[in-house]
């Protein structure tokens, strides 16, 4: 009895503590989201602003049922969508391939080297994003570090086209988002129980079999966590494609930014954002579902 009333009191205290935060979140997170959702269904005004008329064709412009009176369905938006997905997916794969082995290496270092490595990985956060990206411009541009070095060594006679390509954009994304992949990966690699690896070998599995049957499944939460943390911000990022992709590599982030800041077509920008968000939410939902399914086997299933 006493325990129960105590836990009730604790619950009351907890909601008192969490209350302000919840209200804060509700106001400053969900309200803008709601405004965006509403805007995405309103008609864009001629000189910016909105007309308060229900208007589904913001989505139509992207998905193929454009307003027949003055808009056309333009597949370019779907292309940008696909390109963004491709860049984000490539970024995820590259960061994963780099970070996965690195996480194992670092997790096996001695304590102080471990901490030092983690510090190095977090170090870029201390410098401005823009500065770090412009350094890549200096390295990649026509008269930049790589081209001038290669040309002075006589390896190439014409400068290579490196900057303002999809490749440069991906490079920038990888560069910026690598810590987001590394940290969750490292967390799951670090807590991997190595006696399980021994047990697997002891039971006759070679290195390959042990990797696919034991190590990979047990570090999967880190792989998925890191992939989500890289994929989502890459998809919406507009700074990297602006600086390293130039006019040729337009991504969703650029498109949305343009609609809000240059074209002043807020409803269309809102519709784009909503679509991106829906896509991301669907992915997260699928992930969470698959996680809880095998995490929630009650003893009753025997």
């Amino acid at each position, binding site marked *: 009895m006493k325990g129960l009333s105590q836990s009730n009191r604790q619950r009351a205290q907890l909601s008192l503590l969490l209350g302000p935060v919840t209200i804060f979140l509700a106001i400053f997170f969900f309200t803008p989201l709601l405004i965006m959702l509403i805007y995405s269904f309103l008609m864009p005004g001629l000189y910016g602003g909105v007309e308060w008329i229900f208007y589904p064709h913001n989505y139509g412009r992207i998905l193929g049922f454009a307003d027949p009176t003055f808009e056309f369905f333009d597949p370019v938006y779907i292309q940008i969508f696909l390109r963004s997905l491709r860049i984000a997916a490539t970024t995820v794969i590259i960061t994963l391939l780099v970070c996965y082995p690195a996480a194992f290496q670092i997790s096996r270092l*001695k304590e102080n080297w471990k901490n030092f490595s983690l510090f190095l990985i977090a170090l870029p956060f201390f410098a401005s994003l823009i500065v770090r990206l412009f350094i890549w411009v200096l390295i990649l541009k026509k008269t930049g570090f790589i081209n001038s070095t290669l040309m002075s060594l006589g390896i190439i006679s014409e400068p290579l086209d490196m900057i303002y390509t999809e490749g440069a954009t991906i490079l920038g994304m990888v560069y910026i988002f690598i810590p987001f992949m590394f940290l969750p990966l490292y967390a799951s690699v670090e807590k991997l*129980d190595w*006696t*399980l690896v*021994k*047990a*697997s*070998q*002891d*039971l*006759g*599995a*070679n290195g390959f*079999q042990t990797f696919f*049957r*034991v190590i990979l*499944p*047990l570090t999967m939460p880190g792989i998925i966590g890191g992939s989500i943390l890289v994929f989502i911000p890459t998809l919406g990022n507009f700074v990297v494609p602006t600086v390293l992709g130039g006019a040729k590599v337009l991504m969703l982030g650029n498109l949305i930014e343009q609609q809000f800041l240059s074209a002043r077509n807020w409803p269309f920008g809102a519709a784009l954002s909503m679509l991106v968000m829906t896509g991301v939410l669907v992915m997260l939902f699928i992930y969470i579902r698959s996680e809880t399914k*095998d995490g929630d*086997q009650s*003893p009753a*299933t*025997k």
Partner: protein
Amino acid sequence: MHDKIISLDNATKRFSLPEGGKINALDAIDLEVSRNEFLTLLGPSGCGKTTLLHVISGFVQLDEGQILIDGVDMGETPPHNRPVNTVFQNYALFPHMSVGENVGYALEIAHTPKPERIKRVGEALELVGLGGYADRMPRQLSGGQQQRVALARAIIARPKLLLLDEPLSALDRNLRQSMQIELKNLQAELGISFIFVTHDQEEALTMSNRVAVLNGGVIQQIDTPLNTYNYPANSFVASFVGASNLFEGKASRDGERIHIATEHNEVIEARARKDQHINGGKVTAMLRPEQFSLADGDENRAEIDVTIDQIVFLGSAYELLGKTTGGSEIKAIISAARQSRLAEVERTKTARLSYDPNAVHLIPGTGDVQ
């Protein structure tokens, strides 16, 4: 078929320490295990038990010496190609696999067809008393059940040798005792050799055909449980296996009688055994606590006076803790049937204890005993 399932010859392993220098985790170990033998490795923490198992299972490479499994030199053979399976100290069950998948892992790796796999998983689980648990996840099992799953997983591929690294240390006392019996039965049933690691001497004595006592990477003694207990080869074994009273001193011989005079001016009486030749010099005399009784004037027994510091009730017996007049610590176990005399001891805080000189075991001190 080879007579010895495993033989280690001069097996030596050194680890370099982070603070510099090296430690001999295994120091010139010679060890043979016969077919169908239950051998226990007994020793204090850090004496090299796990290292020795790892040498056999292939996770640790020897610096010197040789290891043969069933007559075949294992040299560089990696762990997954050795006909040996291990039950790990913390069970090491794969958390992402069901009990059935855990147990069937070795068969799946060996590409055993599914119907046979399912059949053998069922049999193995039956054998450890967990029939019908195949679909559970390891975390839904109690410690004892996880232990059994680990056991089933390790025996399913029918290894020639099963290594068990302190498999019972995480279980409570009752469960541990019933598992001891089950393990022993299982070993007889399966007919494979077990090497069982423990630092619990009682466990070692109950379960094994032979006990190997290890200390500092060196095998101190390999013998039957009875001989290990009654005739320890040195004072380490004497004090590690069971409780003991050790008296180190100079031996002098008078016919059959041997007197050991200690630094504390006690004299312990012993009888010469045929297989020992003692003529004098340093020896250690060992008396188990239960070899003492309260003196009652029997001429065949030697006597010693002690002052008692503490009397501990053990249930069926009392433990007396005290000192000889010379100051050596004494531990004696007296049957609780001697109630009235014990009351007197409690009152006077002194006791005269007697022991049978024939039962005193002499451990060679500086090589005067051959």
